[in-house]
């Protein structure tokens, strides 16, 4: 399927943080009442890489993303985003950092009282950018997700897949350096899921944006690991078998609040861990 035309190309990954990673979790734990959700989680997300985050329902994937965004505070451990320790920052300082990070929520979390263009333009309006510039960039972002025709519509008039794509447009409009996707294809039909996977791969390969993607769907992550976005044809192309390890893509699996796997596609496919083998089979 050909992808929509590209907006301005401005790779975000050129910014290198002091820690050397776009995102880093260091021994992070969090519990809700008696329920320990994450227990000593440590991993790193290098710049320009997309990491697929797996785990059964309730394993803490969404919690992990909210921790990375500073929307939740961990009980222990440290979290670095773009070299800044979010666990030591005040809410006011976090507002500044969050302008450099985009997030796509599981249920899209569009503002239902605002129209699509107001949703997508939300951050730009807050920054006091001129109306002409906002309209240009909103149309560009909506074109990127193939939804320019929804400009004046309300979120309630959109399907689940369209809402998810508008949420992606809202997340990428400011060209963030890190993107967090919370089950971006969850509950969607295969065609819409493929479109969203294509958008995520395009963001990875064209803009070199670092991303952490929580998902249940192994097939989406494997598509991302075995394909790359071809700018010439403007669509996804399958990589030859010998080049599949060259895609900046890795996998992280959570179980019982701990990381049980952190590696690339080849390491995942050849893992001897019974749980992982059962999970990917």
């Amino acid at each position: 399927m050909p992808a929509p035309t590209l907006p301005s190309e401005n790779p975000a990954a050129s910014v290198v943080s002091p820690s050397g990673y776009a995102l880093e979790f260091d021994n992070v734990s969090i519990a809700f009442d008696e329920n320990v959700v994450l227990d000593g989680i440590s991993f790193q997300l290098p710049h320009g890489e997309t990491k697929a985050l797996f785990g059964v329902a309730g394993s803490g994937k969404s919690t992990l993303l909210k921790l990375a965004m500073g929307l939740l505070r961990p009980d222990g451990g440290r979290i670095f985003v773009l070299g800044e320790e979010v666990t030591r920052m005040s809410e006011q300082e976090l507002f500044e950092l969050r302008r450099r990070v985009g997030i796509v929520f599981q249920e899209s979390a569009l503002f239902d009282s605002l129209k699509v263009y107001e949703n997508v333009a939300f951050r730009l309006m807050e920054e006091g950018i001129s109306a002409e510039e906002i309209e240009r960039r909103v149309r560009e972002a909506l074109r990127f997700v193939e939804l320019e025709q929804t400009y004046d519509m309300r979120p309630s008039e959109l399907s689940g897949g369209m809402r998810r794509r508008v949420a992606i447009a809202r997340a990428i409009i400011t060209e963030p350096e890190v993107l967090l996707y919370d089950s971006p294809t969850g509950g969607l039909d295969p065609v819409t899921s493929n479109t969203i996977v294509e958008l995520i791969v395009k963001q990875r390969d064209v803009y070199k944006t670092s991303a952490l993607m929580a998902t249940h769907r192994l097939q989406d992550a494997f598509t991302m690991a075995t394909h790359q976005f071809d700018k010439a044809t403007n669509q996804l192309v399958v990589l030859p078998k010998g080049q599949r390890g060259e895609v900046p893509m890795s996998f992280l699996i959570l179980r019982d609040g701990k990381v049980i796997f952190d590696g690339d596609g080849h390491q995942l496919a050849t893992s001897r861990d019974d749980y992982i083998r059962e999970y990917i089979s």
Partner: protein
Amino acid sequence: MAFELELISPIEVAKDVALAVQEYTLLSAQSLANFFRRPLYMGDMLQQADLIGVGSLPIVILTGLSVGALLALNSASTLQRFGGITLIGQLVSLGMVTELGPLITGLMVAGRNASGMASELGSMIVTEQIDAMRALGTDPTKKLITPRVGATAFMLFFLTIIADLLGLIGGYGVAHLLFGLDTQQYWTSVWQTLVFRDVFTGLIKPVLFGFIIATVGCYYGISTRGGTQGVGRSTTQAVVASSVLILVVDFFVTKLIFAIFGYR
């Protein structure tokens, strides 16, 4: 189906209440501090002023008129027995301006708007819209709470003035039409009875009540837990808590003003 009763320790209940009071106090303080921080979101404040002020106008007009008329009707029969029907204007004006106008307007607006704020913000919580706002780098207390607090306090002030006036008109209607009181006599007694402290009392209260309505409504809204059922619970709690708080604060403000200015 078997129901299990869970006994909750009084200490846990006390801790929860203390935590809620602390969170409410912090939210209230932050909503006020935001008036001195940029951006101020004047557009949102005007929108809320329209929703709260203009939207509440019909119920305020109706209740103001009714309460004034009822006050006159109930007091007239007693006053008539002592030949003091001419005092009806004094009674209605004092009652409406110092007490019933602010109180009834506050309670009406609490019923209409505290519930609206709690349900709107509660829905935003359960659909992760508040988290999305924070993730987009916007402070929800600045964007959502401060405009509601400012708009409610500002509009309740004017709504109370309207309710007071309509209460006096309602009282006049009863006094003139049912008890034959002279128009000039009624309005002269209304005017001459009121002194600075009465007007001051009647106008300071709506500002405080407006602050209570908005902060309580917003507090229950953003504290919503437990999906749509939680939104319903927050809405009910917001109306009950704001109404009770208005009555309690009304008593203490009246007492304080008596302490400052002395009894009449």
